[in-house]
């Protein structure tokens, strides 16, 4: 087990993981997050080689469009398994 800090919270991982492996374990689509390790965003093409190791500080940055559509159309029901759940700080 290794200890890491993810989005400000201490967590344990089974073993060191590549960024790609870690993101794959999350209930989010990999295309809609950016990942920073120890204060620096990891370019997407390096996700397979950069390891998250003991003591690392990781930020998973979710894509945010912001604002509101002008007609306030509600499409929340389309939330599927790709979506971050309410309890997750992703």
């Amino acid at each position, binding site marked *: 087990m290794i200890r890491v800090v993810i*989005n400000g919270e201490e967590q344990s991982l089974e073993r060191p993981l590549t960024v790609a492996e870690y993101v794959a374990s999350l209930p989010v689509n990999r*295309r809609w997050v950016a990942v920073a390790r120890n204060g620096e*965003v990891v370019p997407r093409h390096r996700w397979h080689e950069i390891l998250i190791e003991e003591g690392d500080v990781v*930020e998973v940055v979710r894509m*945010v*469009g912001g604002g509101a559509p002008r007609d306030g159309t509600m499409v929340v029901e389309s939330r599927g398994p790709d979506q971050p759940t309410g309890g997750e700080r992703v």
Partner: protein
Amino acid sequence: MAVNVYIPTPFRKLAGNQAYVQAEGQTVQEVLEHLARRYPGLATMVFDQDRRIQAHINVYLNSQEIHSLQGPDTPVRDGDEVAVIPALAGGQVLTPEQVMRYSRHIIMPQVGPVGQRKLMAARVLVVGAGGLGGPAALYLALAGVGTIGIVDFDVVDLSNLQRQVLHQNDDVGKPKTQSAKETLLAYNPDVNVVLHEAPLTSDNAMDIIPQYDIVINGADNFTTRYLVNDACYFARKPLVDAAILMFDAQLTVFVPGQGCYRCLFPSPPPPGAVPNCAEAGVLGALTGVIGSLQAIEAMKLILGIGEPMVGRLLLYDALSGEFRVVKVRRDPKCPLCGDDPTITELIDYEGFCGAPFPGRDEA
């Protein structure tokens, strides 16, 4: 000695459209002569036939007028800032009312009278007169930023009033641009508010954005967000970008060639996959925090002070009360600003994002 020379808007065309130019010399005179050799058009504006600085040109070294120092022979040091300010029709100096109005800015050496004139000469475009664009435009107007452009197509809705400070109860149903202009001028009639009352699209972005020095992004959808990112890159304009949802916010400054939104997020999620504020909600006061930070970043860029958030992404979690900053670099594989770009002009953003520009149907 290498110093930065601030070129005011009226002279910028003569200096390659740059706000700051590096020049060398031991004294202010030598720096200006070096500048004049590189930009002959500027030489005739700054010097008379005897290579003396023209009487109607005021020269400042680090915000101090050089005649209060040692005149043109004032020595310069590495990193100093020289500003060349012409007397303009409409007043060479700040009016007494302006001095009073902006006194809490002018009193700070980082702003001073020269900085105030930079603010008054600046042109900032605010995309969206909503939650973020509102406080951003408001503080820019209060600071006397000379020209504030507002792009919006929408009308004020009752549900906007929980956070959008430019609009009041009586404004419901009014175009947001009009309501924004009335509010900004009521706060400060000294600024020029330019309205672009239409959705920003691929058709008009390259007409509108190049008219400004800096763009503040308060877009509420991915289609506009990618358009603004790409258009600012092509127009070589700094973009003060931010996005908010629920209790979370992100903010950064993209300077063309030093990273862009696509370096972080190369492609948008399909419509509806990432909730927006109408669906998930947003804390009203959060828009005030982040919109104000956008105004601060724009003012830092205008004044050339501090360290703009270029290459750094601010993450604010209002619930935990934590601000975190991570570094962002230009991705050499970025499709827009990478080494082998595949996007070389504005594209079909509605097709790319799978969603129309909001308001396009009505336009």
